């Protein structure tokens, strides 16, 4: 049986380290994905996850239950990353996937080069977006948040989230045209049926 947010919060406030570990296990990947999407550097993202969870642990009393605990954690993460980026005053750290990771090491040099180019192109395209549009599309595509969750994190109506996603996608697709034409192993019509992607 899943433990409710309020019970978890009460237990963490009471000093229950196992309860906090449960909070960490349940949210660590999403927090890391959001941090990596925003900071674009794996080491910075690891540091951000550490700082976010320490901050959340120490300020658990601030959680008022107005949104889900997971949504609150993402909001803290987004604010932390925005602060960090402001401090760095740089949007030049490019995150390109390391090709020597499990499952990719047997890829051809041409494919690795293509993926490196693709990663750089995606980062360039994201950098072209306004902050709100970029955050919305990253929370959706990388963090896997629902529209309601994005609205809660960004403090705006759901309709605004949909509008931001619409404009972000339009611009990204325009900037990424060369990479969008790669249809992949399955034919277009075969892929149509499994269009609903599972959330993270």
């Amino acid at each position, binding site marked *: 049986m899943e433990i409710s947010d309020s019970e978890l919060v009460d237990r963490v406030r009471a000093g229950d380290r196992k309860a906090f570990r449960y909070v960490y296990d349940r949210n660590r990947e999403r927090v890391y994905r959001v941090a990596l*999407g925003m900071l674009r550097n794996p080491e910075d993202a690891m540091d951000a996850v550490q700082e976010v969870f320490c901050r959340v642990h120490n300020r658990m009393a601030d959680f008022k239950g107005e949104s889900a605990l997971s949504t609150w954690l993402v909001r803290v993460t987004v604010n932390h990353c925005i602060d960090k980026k402001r401090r760095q005053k740089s949007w030049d750290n490019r995150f390109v996937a390391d090709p020597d990771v499990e499952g990719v090491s047997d890829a051809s040099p041409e494919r690795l080069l293509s993926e490196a180019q693709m*990663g750089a192109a995606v980062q360039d395209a994201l950098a072209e977006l306004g902050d709100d549009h970029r955050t919305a599309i990253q929370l959706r595509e990388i963090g896997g948040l629902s529209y309601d969750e994005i609205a809660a994190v960004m403090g705006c109506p759901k309709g605004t989230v949909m509008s931001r996603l619409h404009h972000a996608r339009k611009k990204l697709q325009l900037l990424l045209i060369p990479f969008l034409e790669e249809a992949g192993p399955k034919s277009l019509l075969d*892929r149509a049926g499994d*269009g609903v992607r599972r*959330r993270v």
Partner: protein
Amino acid sequence: MTDDDLDLLARYVDGEATGAETSDVERRLKSEPAFALAFQAMRRSGELMRIPVDRAVAEVSFEALWTRIERNLPANLPKPSPIAALWAKLSLVFTPPVLLAVGAAAAVAVYLAARSPSEVGAPPKPGPSIVAATPIPAPVRDFEDLDPGAEPFVVEEIRSEGNKTIFVSQPFDKGGATVIWVLDGPETSGKPSTGLAPDEDPI
């Protein structure tokens, strides 16, 4: 491809489409090549963002990260003060809608308290109506001679040109009185109408 089509596709790709929308999209994907191409582009752009992140996530040792986090956690969390804890709990209960409802309930309670007991819950009567329920600051001359200690409340009836006014007041010192109720309405035949049952004491 219209903006509405793109929004529909976005809801489908994001798992936010309704059942009817999902059926509509899947039908159009098979029959409209342009729609299918737009779908492919939308899916692909999302994949392009996720691919490097998915790989990075696969590399992370979340156990090692937990060790780092745990090392930096304080042994004990600072206990919030009792007032802060109480305020935190109250702030959950007394949200603006709740405060509004409490205010409305208080207003209704004041209104009901300002009516006589027999009127509460009874259908409206054409008899006297409450026109004021606040103290009149100026002394009421008619009560000048009343002894403040004799009666806690005084009922006085004044008739004029077919209308009748009943004052329920409490004298507070010689020469003055606090009017608690002023019941005003048309004069009826027989006994003066107070809005109470005939055998009921008006006080």
